[in-house]
């Protein structure tokens, strides 16, 4: 039977690629018998879900703003280079 270390690898891979029938079978069998790996599997899925949430969290943080010098620089660039290419 597959051990916990092999199981942990397969669980990670299952988040990135479809597992083969054999792999799925081995995984299911191990998880059936191993509470620690079932817990690990849940935590891995939780990690994956929450990581996706980092995207929206960062966007909601209103303390992070574009500094004034950068804003000015971008404005200048938009005038200079933007004007080179007017919509035809």
């Amino acid at each position: 039977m597959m051990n916990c270390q092999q199981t942990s690898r397969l669980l990670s891979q299952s988040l990135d690629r479809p597992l083969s029938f054999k792999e799925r079978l081995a995984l299911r069998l191990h998880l059936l018998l191993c509470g620690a790996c079932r817990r690990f599997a849940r935590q891995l899925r939780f990690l994956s879900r929450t990581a996706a949430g980092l995207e929206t969290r960062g966007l909601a943080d209103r303390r992070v703003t574009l500094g004034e010098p950068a804003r000015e620089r971008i404005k200048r660039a938009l005038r200079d280079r933007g004007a080179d290419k007017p919509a035809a």
Partner: protein
Amino acid sequence: MQPTPAEPNDWQATNPETWLEAHGDYLYRYALSRVRNETLAEDLVQETLLAAIKGRAGFDGRASERTWLTGILKHKVIDQLRRQYREVPLEDDVGACHDDDGFGMDEFFAADGHWASRPAAWSDPAKATEDSHFWDALSLCVERLAPKQRQLFVLREVHGAGNEEICKDMGITPTNAGVMLYRARMSLRQCLELNWFGLRREETETRR
């Protein structure tokens, strides 16, 4: 000075500078959350707005202005991450690892492949996500990953980039990507357990 809109529709009449006013901070946060470098993030915002001026004819007005601009930025960010990825020195690269399977992380397991220390019970993870400190802890754990692992993880899990896409553009094999993502996930899981769910660990930990 300013480009003359060729067509009189409302959207094209918009001055790009108003994009900066309306969406600049948002775009900046978006960029910064990925590239972790303020100057780079500012440059990405600028590139995005310049690309938007060039590409404004392609905007059909069906998406919101912000969604459209974010779409452009997203591509710029991915390009940037790919460049960064290639520049990271090889030390923490999987290529440097030549043992038979290369997955590593043996310290988490006993010689017989059982957990050296079983994953602890996490009390109410769903509730944790309502706590802003949890997100700080998670960000910090992501920061602490080795550079290449972090970049891959951010692309894959935060960004939702497909494995094939990542491998093609970074010039690594799916196996290598899988190995690095595995390492990243193992480290992150442990980091969160120690730094966030840690208090509960003592109560629930049962030694084998």
